């Protein structure tokens, strides 16, 4: 399958935009106006971009604590996301959720919650409802490899296989659950997609930093999920560049080997792709500047919007406890 020039630029744009947004969050976090835990995904751009580029607006996405990119790639409003992190009434959850509870129903980002594994069965349930109503849309559930250690993961995969539900499981394997490496949590050389396969859900393992490959493979997979109503599991290896939670680099803590960090920094999905596109003359420095300027403008606008927005009124506290 081929990928046209415009698509390439779109993929690049999506990734660099997400990175620049999170870099701005990291830069401004120390002002102590964004007062909530933030789990930044810098380094993991290719997955959200490559997968979501294949989705239609009606398709639905669920995520976990590290959800900014899924929200953005699915078309979630940047202004509302930044406002949410600032705790403002204009936030996507009215300030009640913070960074760990992003939602943009119109864009199809249905839920993101910070209890590890919790959205997996919820996404399966949503896919079940979609299938019963013959709605012809798919649900994509993004989760970290840590989720695959929770019982509910197995229960959900089992049920999705049993009922042939139109759901795509996307496991972002960045090898760590907070500071705990995979070697302390799972047997050596396990392939997570093999686990899914043994439970009856077909799977594949991909390089999570190769955006074109992800895009192209996911395109096929998503089409087949739509056509056959069968679930699918994609495991993608990738790496988070910053600390687990917060704006900083925490390499000084030495829980990740330096060689490993260097290896993955070299595999930065954006640097790599930029080089490729420059070489292919899809991009040039003039085009790049234009992209950067445009994104910077959007980001600055969104931050200004968030900062200017008001905090929710006191009367909002007791609103919406019940529907």
């Amino acid at each position, binding site marked *: 399958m081929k990928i046209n020039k415009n698509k390439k630029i779109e993929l690049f744009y999506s990734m660099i935009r997400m990175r620049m947004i999170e870099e701005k969050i990291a830069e401004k976090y120390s002002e102590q106006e964004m007062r*909530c835990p933030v789990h930044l995904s810098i380094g993991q751009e290719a997955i959200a971009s490559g997968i979501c580029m294949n989705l239609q607006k009606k398709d639905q996405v669920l995520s976990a604590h590290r959800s900014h990119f899924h929200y953005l790639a699915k078309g979630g409003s940047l202004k509302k996301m930044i406002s949410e992190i600032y705790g403002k009434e204009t936030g996507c959850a009215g300030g*009640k959720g*913070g960074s*760990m*509870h992003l939602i943009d129903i119109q864009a199809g980002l249905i839920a993101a919650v910070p209890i590890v*594994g919790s959205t997996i069965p919820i996404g399966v349930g949503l896919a079940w409802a979609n299938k019963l109503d013959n709605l012809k849309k798919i649900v994509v559930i993004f989760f970290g490899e*840590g989720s695959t250690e929770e019982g509910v993961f197995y229960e959900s995969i089992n049920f999705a296989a049993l009922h042939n539900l139109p759901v795509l499981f996307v496991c972002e394997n960045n090898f760590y659950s*907070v500071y705990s490496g995979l070697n302390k*949590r799972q047997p050596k050389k396990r392939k997570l997609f093999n686990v899914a396969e043994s439970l009856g859900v077909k799977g594949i393992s991909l390089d999570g930093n190769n955006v074109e490959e992800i895009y192209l493979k996911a395109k096929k997979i998503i089409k087949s999920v739509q056509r056959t109503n069968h679930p699918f599991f994609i495991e993608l290896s990738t790496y988070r560049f910053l600390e687990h939670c917060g*704006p900083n680099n925490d390499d000084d803590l030495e829980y990740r080997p330096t060689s490993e960090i260097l290896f993955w920094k070299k595999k930065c999905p954006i640097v790599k792709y930029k080089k490729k596109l420059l070489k292919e003359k899809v991009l040039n420095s003039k085009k790049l500047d234009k992209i950067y300027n445009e994104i910077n403008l959007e980001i600055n606008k969104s931050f200004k919007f968030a900062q200017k927005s008001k905090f929710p009124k006191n009367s909002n506290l007791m609103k919406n406890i019940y529907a």
Partner: protein
Amino acid sequence: MLKKNSINKNRFIQYTQAINEALMQSMKLDKKIVILGLGVDDPKRIFGTTNNLIETYGKNRVFDMPTSENAITGFAIGMSLGKYRPVLCHQRVEFALLSMDQIINQAAKWSYMNDGQMSVPIVIRLIIGRGWGQGPQHSQSLESLFANIPGLKVVCPSSAYDAKGMLISSINDNNPVIFFEHRWLHSTYSIVPKKHYSVPIGRSKIVKKGNNLTIVSSSYMTIESLKASEILSNYGINAEVIDLRTLRPLDIKPVLKSLKKTKKLLVVDNGWTQYGISAEIITRVATIKKLNKNLAINRMGIADTPIPSTRNLAKLCYPDCLDICTEVGKILNIKFKNLYSKFKSFRAQDVPNKNFTGPF
């Protein structure tokens, strides 16, 4: 229990260090004590509470775990049946909600189900979050949920001294003990003896003597209650403050004794008020015939809503020392002049202390 000369007056240590000492010293005395939990040997060491454990006792006694709370709890129960004494820990209370079957159906029932032939001596350390926008799923005070269950013991020490002594008691106890640590207590200091000592489970404590009214509280709200009593003294009111320390089994006696004197009760719940600790305390008090004439009773707790992330709404959820004074005023029919302007600096913010800058 303490010999006077064993107290070094200058030995002010942090709550987290007190927990750490309890673990260190207990593990030395009993080789069957093992530590389980995600991150117990990571660079942050559960806010410093598990410092040096792996270095001292090795990787056969300190186990980093998969993100599998339900199974981990089952493993701990199983290990305890094999004569180990596991101490489990979760960085937030909410993560233990994934293991409620193992805790409530299994651990809490074990001894009873087999008529005392086997018990489950495990400790589950749960950390209550608060502040910095942690939001609905990372800042719940769910003590009453656990305190509802026969077969569990539930403790929630509010000082470093009690934390060390009660963790040692919890480890020594032959039953499943839920050990609550409030994140905002982690940074508090008190005088803590160096030696291995225990503070019994099931004893509440008068933390400030007084005779005008009785304030009953637990966990972090004990700190706010003490601050309130300080402010109240400016208005000539001498409050007695009782820290429950253990929620199950509950020691109501000091409360009853205090009420004989004060006839006025304010219960300050660390969590939500409905169906909570205050309901239990007040019922115990109100159903005692000899006592219940002319008692003035009031209660307060967290606003009846999930805790929102935004600090502007979250601050409306948590009562603090000034709100406690206001509720005291309702019992005494007093309106304290300039309370909120004069004692503004006593108010809790969305961080435990000035040094806290996030992110977790």
